[in-house]
Structures are given as C-alpha cells and as structure tokens.
C-alpha cells in the first residue's frame, strides 16, 4: 500500500519538480518568472506533437525543451535587456502559453502516443517501500533526480554557479568583478524555462500520454510558490514537489476508494497546501531564515544612479 502511494507521489510530483527547478534557476539569477504555467503548457504540447509526428520520444523531449526555452527567451529579453517589469511580462507569458496551446492543440486532442515506460534498475528496484517509487520509474524521472544534483553542484561547486548567484544577489558586485550579468541572467531564464518545458513534457508524454487543453491545471503556480518554500535550493525543491505529489496521490487514492468527502474538496487539497506553504515560508522568511536573492525582481542598469 505505502509503496504504491509513494510511487504515485513521485509520479505526481515530477512535473512540479521540473517546473520548480526551472523557476529556481531563473530566480537565482534575479529574474522572477511567473510564466511557468504557460511554459509548462508549451512544453507539453510541443513535446506531444513532436513525439506524435516523428514517433520518437527523444525528439519530443528535445522539442519541449527548445519550445519552452524559446518562449522563455522572450521573457528574458523583456526583463534583462529591456529592463521591463518582470511581473507583467511573466503573467503575459502565462496567458500567451494558455492561448497558443489551446489554438494549436486542437488537432492533437484525442490522439495518443506510447509514453515513457518504466525502466527497473536491477537490484535497487527490489528494495522494500522505496524500490518501486525511486528505482522502477521512467527515464524522465531519473533525469529529474540527476538535475537536482547537477543544479546543486553547479550553484555551489562551480565558478559559473557563483557568478549566476551573484548576478541575482548583487548584480553591481558581479559587474564590477567582470561577470557579464546580462548574459548570465538571460541564459538562466532561458535554460530554466526549457527545464520547465520538460515538466510539461512529463505530463503529456509520461503521466498521461495525451494532449488535453490546459492540462497543467495550475501546477505552474504551485511551482512558483514552491521556489519560495524551497528557499531557492534544489534538494528542498524536490522535497516540496513530492509533498504536493503526495497530497495529489493521496486524494486520488481516496477518491478511488470512494470516501464520503466530496471529490471537489479533495481536488482542492494541493492548492490549499500551496497557500499553507506560502504562509509558513513567508513567516519563516520574515524571521530571516530564508535566502531570497537580494536583487530578485530588480532590473540591473549599470548607469542607474541611486
């Protein structure tokens, strides 16, 4: 029972994990990205249609990454080079993503593909409880494990990661040390958006291998909240994403078992969880525990006189 629930937790949490990791990279460089929801949909549709058209899951995955990265690059251009308002641009990106995928996705509704299938890791997958959940999953889930580690190592063990973090904390300090702040910020937003796109691709190519309009269903917004909960750290993002995956899996299970509680109430749970998490993490941030990048949301203009 618990191993089945855990397995469902990981599967439900993975799209949110990708989205949170992507948003986190962008915010570490100082750019807020509220376009996550739209980027997930763009990734989901691009991945599904490419996989359907070419009959190759890897091509689909690549398409999801590239399409979301290209859409994210618009946001990056507006926020970094043009120093526009990050909130407005991000919201516009979400609306753009919802609209354009609804338009181009019409032909895809009802089609199916063979999604990613499970690959058991010999030995480890036999472990009690965690074996099935963590070592008998599809390639995308293994990729998400890898990303969590790689992102952490990148931030804390490489020079580039330090440059990127400094661009988000104090861009003037980075600039005076010769770090090309605009380049780092642009790349962080673009690559981060591509990773968000992978989260969308997981939805349409693994979780439920089909295209449904607006299939991200608010997961992008949950990811935006989770970045704060995760204190901008990738291992904590994993924890947060699985927390939500767990709530989702649990409520699905309860629906399947047929409880007295209304399905509408159960479906609300992950979103109520988001609100609670935001309240708790905001309180913690006010106590000074968090490490919000200091220049988050602020455009950097070298010649700006303060």
């Amino acid at each position, binding site marked *: 029972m618990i191993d089945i629930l855990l397995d469902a937790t990981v599967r439900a949490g993975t799209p949110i994990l990708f989205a949170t990791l992507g948003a986190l990279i962008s915010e570490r460089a100082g750019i807020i990205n509220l376009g996550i929801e739209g980027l997930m949909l763009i990734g989901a549709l691009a991945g599904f249609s490419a996989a359907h058209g070419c009959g190759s899951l890897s091509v689909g995955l690549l398409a999801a990454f590239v399409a979301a990265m290209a859409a994210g690059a618009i946001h990056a251009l507006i926020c970094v080079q043009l120093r526009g308002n990050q909130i407005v641009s991000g919201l516009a990106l979400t609306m753009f993503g919802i609209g354009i995928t609804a338009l181009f996705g019409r032909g895809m509704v009802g089609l199916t593909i063979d999604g990613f299938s499970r690959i058991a890791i010999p030995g480890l997958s036999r472990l009690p409880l965690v074996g099935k959940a963590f070592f008998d999953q599809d390639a995308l889930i293994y990729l998400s494990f890898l990303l969590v580690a790689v992102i952490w190592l990148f931030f804390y063990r490489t020079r580039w990661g330090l440059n990127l973090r400094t661009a988000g*904390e104090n861009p003037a*300090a980075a*600039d005076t040390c*010769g770090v*090309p702040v605009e380049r780092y910020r642009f790349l962080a937003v673009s690559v981060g958006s591509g990773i968000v796109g992978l989260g969308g691709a997981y939805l349409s190519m693994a979780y439920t291998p089909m295209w449904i309009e607006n299939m991200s269903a608010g997961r992008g917004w949950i990811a935006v909240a989770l970045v704060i909960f995760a204190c901008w750290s990738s291992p904590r993002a994993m924890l947060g994403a699985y927390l939500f995956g767990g709530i989702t899996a649990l409520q699905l299970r309860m629906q399947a078992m047929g409880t007295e509680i209304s399905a509408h109430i159960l479906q609300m749970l992950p979103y109520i969880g988001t609100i609670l998490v935001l309240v708790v993490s905001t309180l913690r941030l006010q106590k000074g525990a968090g*490490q919000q990048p200091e220049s988050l949301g602020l455009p950097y203009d*070298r010649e700006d006189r303060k």
Partner: protein
Amino acid sequence: MPDLLQIEHIRKTFPGVVALDSVSFSVAPGEIHTLLGENGAGKSTLMNILTGLYRPDRGRILYAGREVRFARPRASLACGIGMVHQHFMLVPAHSVFENILLALDGVPGFFSRRRLRDRIQQVIDEFDLDLDLDSPVWKLSIGAQQWIELIKLLMRDCRLLILDEPTAVLTPQESERLFAVLTRLREQGKSVIFISHKMREVMEISDRVTVLKKGRSLTTLARGDFDQARLAGLMIGDDQVPQWRKQSRVGDDVVLDIRDLSVRNDRGLADLDSCSLELKKGEILGIAGVAGNGQKALAEVLTGLKKAASGRIFAAGEDITHSSARSSYIAGIAHIPEDRKSIGIAPDLSVDDNLILKSFKQPGFRRWIFQDRAAIRRNAREKIAQFAIKAGPDGAPVRYLSGGNIQKVIIARELSEDPAVLVALYPTRGLDIGSAEYVHKVMADGAARGMSTLLISEDLDELLKICDRIAVMFRGRVVGCVDPRQTTREAIGLMMSGEEVA
C-alpha cells in the same frame, strides 16, 4: 617617469544634471593621488567612468600611454584598475571565500577549493587579519568588509587601486593600518587614487592632490605645495559659509533618559545591547562610533521607527517606552534621518508639500477635507526665505534639489514646531562645507533656545567642534562619555574599537 593614467577633459551628464563638466588629471606610477572635493563635485562619477561603469560623453583616458575606452567593468579590470567602492560591492549572504573568489581572475569553471582557499588564507595571514573564510559577510563588521574589498584588489594584482572614502567606516587606528598598507603598495610601484574629504588624512598620505569642484578639476598640487588652509580655501571657493558661535547652556533637567535599552534587528541580533544614556536640556550630545555599532538603532528607537525589546525610555521623567504617551512624544520629536532621499523626503512631491508633511492636518493648512493650497504656498515661501533654500521653480519635485538644499528642507520642516529634542543621524554627511556649517548653526541656535540634540556622526572633528559631551558606542553599548574639551581623537578612537575608558 611617464604617467600611468591620464584623464583629459572628461565630461559626463545624466538626465538634467551635469555630473562632470571638464576634468583632467594624471596619476604617476608609485603615487598616492588624492581627489579632494565636496560630495556632488563628481569624484564618484569620475571613478565610475574609470572602472567602466559609466561611459563618458566626452574627453579621453590614456592608460600606460595608450588611449582606452572602457565599455564595461571587465575592460577596466583587464587593465589592472581596481576599486573599493563607497558602497561595498559584496554579497552579504555569501561567504568571505565566495566573495573573494568572485573577484579572482582565471579561476576555471570547476576549481580546486582547497588550493584557492589556501591562496586566499595566505593573503589574509600576510595582513594579519582575523577573517573566517566560511563566515557570511553580513556577520562581519563594516571595517572587516572593507578589508575583504581590499583583498579582492590585491589578489587581482591591480596596478591602479581606487579607494572611495575608505576611512569613513574605520576607527582612527584602523585608518592608520590602512595607510600603512597603502604606503607599502606605493613602495611596490603601485598607484593609488584616494578619495576623501577628511583634510587630516589627505595631508598625511597624499603625494599629490587634485581638487574637484562642481564637476571641474580646479588644480593639482604636489606635496609641499598644499596645506590644510589652502585646500579648504580651494574647496570652498567663493561659497558663503555661515558664521555661528556656540553658547553652551546645558541645563540640569534630563530631557531623555535611556536605561538598559535593547533593540533587535531583522535578523534577531541585538543592535542595541542594554544601552544607557542621558540627554540634558539644551545639550548637544554627540554619539561617536564606527558605523554599524547601534547608532542607527538608537536613533530609530528614539524616533519611533523601531520598538524596544527591553529597557526603558523616560522623557522628562515619564516612561514612554511602550505606553500610548509614546506616540504623542514621537510626534513632537524632530528627526534628521540618515538617508535624506529615501526617508527624509517624499522625492517626487514639491518643496511646498514636503514642508508640511508633519503638519498637514493642522487647521491652518486645510479647509474642511481639502488642502488650503494658498496657505501651504505661503508657508513654503516663508520657510524658503528663512532657511535660504535654493528651491528652483515652483512645484518642482524636491529630488531635483542638491543634497544641501534637501537637507535644509528637512530641517525647515522638522524645526517648524519648535521641538524639544532633535535626533540627527549623520546630518552633514555628503554636504559641502557651507551647508554643513549651516546645519551646525541650526543646532547651536537650537541649543541656545533650549533644544536638546542627539548628534550621531562619524566625523570626529565635527563632534569635537560642536558637542557638549560625546558618548562613544561600540557593539550596541555606550562604552563611555567624554568631554570634548578634555579629550583627544586618539582616546575616542580607542573607545570606538571597544576599549572601556573609566
């Protein structure tokens, strides 16, 4: 020897402001060259051009004999020009190691932590500094942060070091240590551009001095050609300096009595740590100390911006720490805040409106629920004349005024209701000599009328000149009070570094 750096007729404008009109000067190898000038004279703008942050509108820069154009800080760094900015370029959340690492050149993407740490530790040991590489920078004193900035430059092997008012945050003893390092660098053939407006230091360390005024370089004088009086004369020029004479009339009544007051900051640490202080009627009490030792928290708790965690404040014998009496007391206090532009004024409002920010509810300034614009204008005209404010066109936003005039607007507003207590936080920081003297005159005149002033300043000369008593703060406590007529700068300096003096 040919000059290392030559600057010719640099001009730089910002929308609506000419920051630099025409500046020329040169720096020789192995020279400490001081740029002297009041704030607003263009020193920092000029240095930002040299470090590639700003691009000049006109003029040229020759470095090591070649004309250079610095399009970005990277280009200037590549030439070996490094700068310690007045507002440090450090990331408070990052460790000392990460902050220094960021500045190092040629560190590969994947680096050997151990080897780099050893290299940095070596430099720290060389200067006999007590720095923990893993400690986040926000935990360090401002003085230690300055050393990190300096280490960043030293490890980069800069040929030209620029230090923008480095001693503003140091005790006199720490300044001496800094000067010893600078002298050593000079012996190694490195050049230093030193920016300061503390005359004493300029006299001590400079090989040559260039005086800037209103965006122009007036003259360059070599050691031997300048003395304190001559430099001061050049800086002031034909500006009017108000005259005032201090009459000490300290009464016996205690206006403010602070007992064991503690205040915590956002991070939960004690900004004030059982601090006790007494302010008497008509007294100008100076607070000396290195920035960041609780002075700001003291001012904030006294003016109602922060709450006390423990301890008591008595005003004229009444406990006002928490009670509702606090709000009426706070409404009656005059406050000259540290950051004029962000909390002293509403920058986009006109001078007229800024002058009534405290009194807009008074019947004289309103008619039913509407403002009485005519009365507000009349009030502004009076204040502008009384305080000699150069206000520009009617209705123009106050942010276009110069620093000195903004300060006068604040003073005019704060003193309009004849307050019993004035809390002034670095009121002359960044002001030209004329405006600074004006602020002193206001405090001295106020004292003669019986107003008590708490003057927080980092300028010891200012404190020694105007105060009746000087209290020295260190790590949130008052370590001692001295009589300015019977003390020395050195004694205060020792107390600023935490030495208790009986």
